[in-house]
């Protein structure tokens, strides 16, 4: 069994990273040129890591399944990125970002990692601005900030509703610069299907060229998995269609432990499901909660239009239940509160599975301010609304357009209807402080690892973490490993481990075509998604989870005996790609339920109905569950639990309160 040591540096919390960084073994420039690093993924984590490692002199090979690294799923992030800059002079600091993140994660994250994240957060903004990323600015020419959930300061930097796009294009341009210089070799439309482990160390991957179907062997001195999150295990989520767990799961099967698989983030503000045909769900950024007020009618089964419901018959339930944070409570809290209202019969819209997100009050308020700026005195309501609309448009225009496209309704006129949807996965490959998995030489970065967000991620912190990992953490920590690898010759690709891994990948593909079943891949994916959403979603209980495990095992059997994969292996075949991903999702789904069943407490996004306070808040059990659950894969799709105890030395652990 691999050893579970988080390798947290000694010393004061605030000095751990600085000390480690300055004592880290280095690799000299001449040696770097002969060291190859494989980076799987070109999202924020992958692109920033690949570009930076190449700048430092390593030979890098980077992989993505899309046709261009610029289309990685990070492109879709909307609202913003956090950084402890304190530009607003509202009392922000590294410590406060650290504290908010630990508390937001419901005391289930590692202190040392989170503190490091807060420390490097400011550098990220500097780096991105230097690259020409056009973040939003104020009239004075300085950077603007907005608020996100779970904090009382304004530390979120943004570029309208396209922050992820702009940050990714920054990292992508840095990556393309290295590609142009021949220092990164880019493999687009390639999917990693196996990690190759030689003598206990990660030494390469097997990747399928998606256009030709050819299986390729790629060797390297280290392998970085930056392959994103696994929210699509639920079939419907806000993730891109291709987002998957395959890279992480194959690594898991080769010995990398999987950390906290059950921690899933259900985002409170998404466009509700409109029918069976739905293929994905669309997020309405958390930044909207800055200016939108969430409410439902006070009367049950109220069928009146929103505009016909007078002010005093509206229940602004978040403001009512959580006066201190109001509409800006963390996501898990806001999602559960929406579900609670809808389950109790106060939901709105056709399906009754929706609540209102209303901009009217703030539109008017902005309009009034704008009228003042424009020297219009005593403006009437109409003028205010007109001017306010312009302000709202500048802040969130693309989100409002998106909403109108999808629902056919005008959100400037009517309040948005929203409902929670699967959005992000805090769980992922277990990594130590250096971002190394339990397989030496195999690293995980970005959403693919489990590291910094505990049981609930705060908004605008994923972009921060992905770029922290890629720009500022791995370039240092990987040196510690690679400096010991200087004597390692280039890895021969005819090594038996490569032969075996390739045969394994080929075996799975052959098996798919041999089944010649009757049901499409999507059929199974939807079934899995339904089990997961119903029994391992926003609320979970022992009975449901036990049932889900049996149902998923049954589904796995059915999948492997009745799936139909059309076409051939040696051609461009997206159905084959999907089949591979769904096969891995099915196994992961089972592990998520096992993990959720094991964790007899509620924390963050993991809400076990049996463990709640009288007011319906999550009830942790710090005595028995203050640990990271790191699961080891065993032959025959079995899993063994290992525990990493979490020690809180700098923060007083308390029941989370946003009242």
């Amino acid at each position, binding site marked *: 069994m691999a050893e579970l040591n988080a390798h947290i540096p000694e010393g004061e919390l605030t000095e751990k990273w600085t000390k480690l960084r300055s004592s880290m073994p280095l690799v000299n420039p001449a040696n770097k040129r002969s060291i190859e690093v494989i980076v799987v993924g070109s999202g924020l984590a992958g692109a920033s890591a690949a570009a930076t490692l190449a700048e430092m002199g390593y030979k890098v090979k980077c992989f993505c399944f899309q*046709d261009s690294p610029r289309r990685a799923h990070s492109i879709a992030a909307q609202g913003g990125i956090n950084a402890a800059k304190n530009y607003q002079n509202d009392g922000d600091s590294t410590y406060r970002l650290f504290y908010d993140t630990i508390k937001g994660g419901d005391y289930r994250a590692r202190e040392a990692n989170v503190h490091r994240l807060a420390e490097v957060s400011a550098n990220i*903004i500097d780096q991105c601005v*230097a690259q020409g990323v056009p973040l*939003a600015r104020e009239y004075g020419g300085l950077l603007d900030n907005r608020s996100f959930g779970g904090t009382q300061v304004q530390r979120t930097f943004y570029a309208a509703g396209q922050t992820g796009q702009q940050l990714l294009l920054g990292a992508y341009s840095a990556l393309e610069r290295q590609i142009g210089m021949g220092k990164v070799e880019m493999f687009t439309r390639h999917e990693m299907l196996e990690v190759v482990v030689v003598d206990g160390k990660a030494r390469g991957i097997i990747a399928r060229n998606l256009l030709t179907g050819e299986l390729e062997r790629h060797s390297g001195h280290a392998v970085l998995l930056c392959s994103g999150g696994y929210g699509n295990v639920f079939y419907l989520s806000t993730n891109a269609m291709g987002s998957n767990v395959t890279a992480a799961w194959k690594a898991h099967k080769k010995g990398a432990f999987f950390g906290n698989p059950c921690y899933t983030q259900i985002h409170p503000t998404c466009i509700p499901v409109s029918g069976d045909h739905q293929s994905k769900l669309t997020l309405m950024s958390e930044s909207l909660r800055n200016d939108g007020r969430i409410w439902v009618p006070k009367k049950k089964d109220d069928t009146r239009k929103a505009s016909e419901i007078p002010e005093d018959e509206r229940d602004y339930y978040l403001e009512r239940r959580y006066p201190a944070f109001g509409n800006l409570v963390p996501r898990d809290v806001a999602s559960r509160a929406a579900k609670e209202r809808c389950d109790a019969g106060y939901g709105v819209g056709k399906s009754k599975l929706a609540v209102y997100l209303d901009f009217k009050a703030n539109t008017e308020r902005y309009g009034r301010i704008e009228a003042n700026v424009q020297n219009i005195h005593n403006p009437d309501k109409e003028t205010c609304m007109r001017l306010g609309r312009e302000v709202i448009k500048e802040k969130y225009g693309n989100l409002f357009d998106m909403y109108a496209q999808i629902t056919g309704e005008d959100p400037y006129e009517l309040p948005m209807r929203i409902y929670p949807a699967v959005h992000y996965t805090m769980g992922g490959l277990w990594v130590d402080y250096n971002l190394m998995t339990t397989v030496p030489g195999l690293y995980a970065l970005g959403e693919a690892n489990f590291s910094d967000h505990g049981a609930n991620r705060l908004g605008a912190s994923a972009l921060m973490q992905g770029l922290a990992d890629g720009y*500022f953490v791995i370039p240092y920590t990987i040196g510690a490993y690679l400096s010991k690898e200087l004597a390692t010759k280039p890895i021969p690709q005819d090594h038996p481990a490569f032969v075996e891994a390739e045969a394994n990948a080929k075996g799975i593909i052959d098996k798919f075509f041999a089944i010649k079943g009757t049901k499409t891949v999507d059929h199974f994916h939807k079934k899995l998604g339904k089990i997961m959403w119903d029994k391992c979603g926003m609320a979970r209980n022992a009975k449901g989870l036990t049932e889900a495990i049996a149902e998923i095992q049954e589904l796995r059997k059915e999948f492997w005996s009745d799936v*139909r994969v059309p076409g051939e292996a040696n051609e461009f075949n997206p159905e084959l790609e999907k089949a591979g991903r769904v096969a891995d999702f099915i196994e992961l789904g089972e592990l998520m339920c096992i993990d959720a069943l094991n964790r007899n407490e509620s924390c963050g996004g993991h809400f076990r109905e049996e463990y709640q306070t009288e007011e319906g808040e999550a009830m942790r059990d710090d005595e028995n569950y203050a640990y990271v659950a790191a699961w080891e894969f065993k032959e025959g799709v079995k899993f063994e639990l290992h525990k990493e105890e979490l020690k809180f030395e700098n923060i007083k652990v308390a029941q989370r309160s946003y009242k």
Partner: protein
Amino acid sequence: MSTGNMNLTLKIWRQKNTKAKGGLVDYKLSEISPDMSFLEMFDVLNEQLISKGDEPVVFDHDCREGICGACSMYIDGRPHGPKDGITTCQLHMRSFKDGDTIVVEPWRAKAFPVIKDLTVDRSAFDRVIAAGGFISVNTGNAQDANNLPIPKVQADSAFEAAACIGCGACVATCKNASAMLFVSAKISQLAQLPQGQPERYRRVQSMVAQMDAEGFGNCTNTGACEAECPKGISLENIARMNRDFYSAKFVSEEDI
């Protein structure tokens, strides 16, 4: 599975691979809901094709919310279909009528060869960016972000150019298959920012050279690209790029 009541005839370009000859194939679809997105309608079609033992239609897509730029479909003679300012994945069936016939083809341009069915190879765009679409700053060399104030108007204008999603609709709609709108968007974003100044003229020269090398056509100012761009990238960017391109000729060699 479907829940609506629209009946449609689709004429879809099918092509086995880059070398094969392609052609339009007719498909009938019924019970399509107006709430479906155009790509969800394709999902329904593909599920039916697979169940019948046929090969599904291959098309690029990923985010399905108008930001990744993958979904390149030429619908009834227009990239991304009949509505302005959106991508194919944002198009909904309520924009069509019961009984419509819809023709769907891939992007057509020499620099974008068809890979299979509706999928094309747009890697030429990446190579144009690799030629100079960046600011040369290694990680770790940045000063404090607020040490460099940038007027809001300028920053906003750079952002508008940076909103390009690299979809290639501008190339697909242009009778010359010119990539000027795409290339100028990046050049113009960086040329409007102080950080972009040191490499301003070198950048425009190398990106334009790469654009030409990729086989994109010339710009004859028809403006079709701007009209079809889902992100409203403005023709002003092309003008700005041209100015920089000509200025670059007069900037001394050492400055480039």
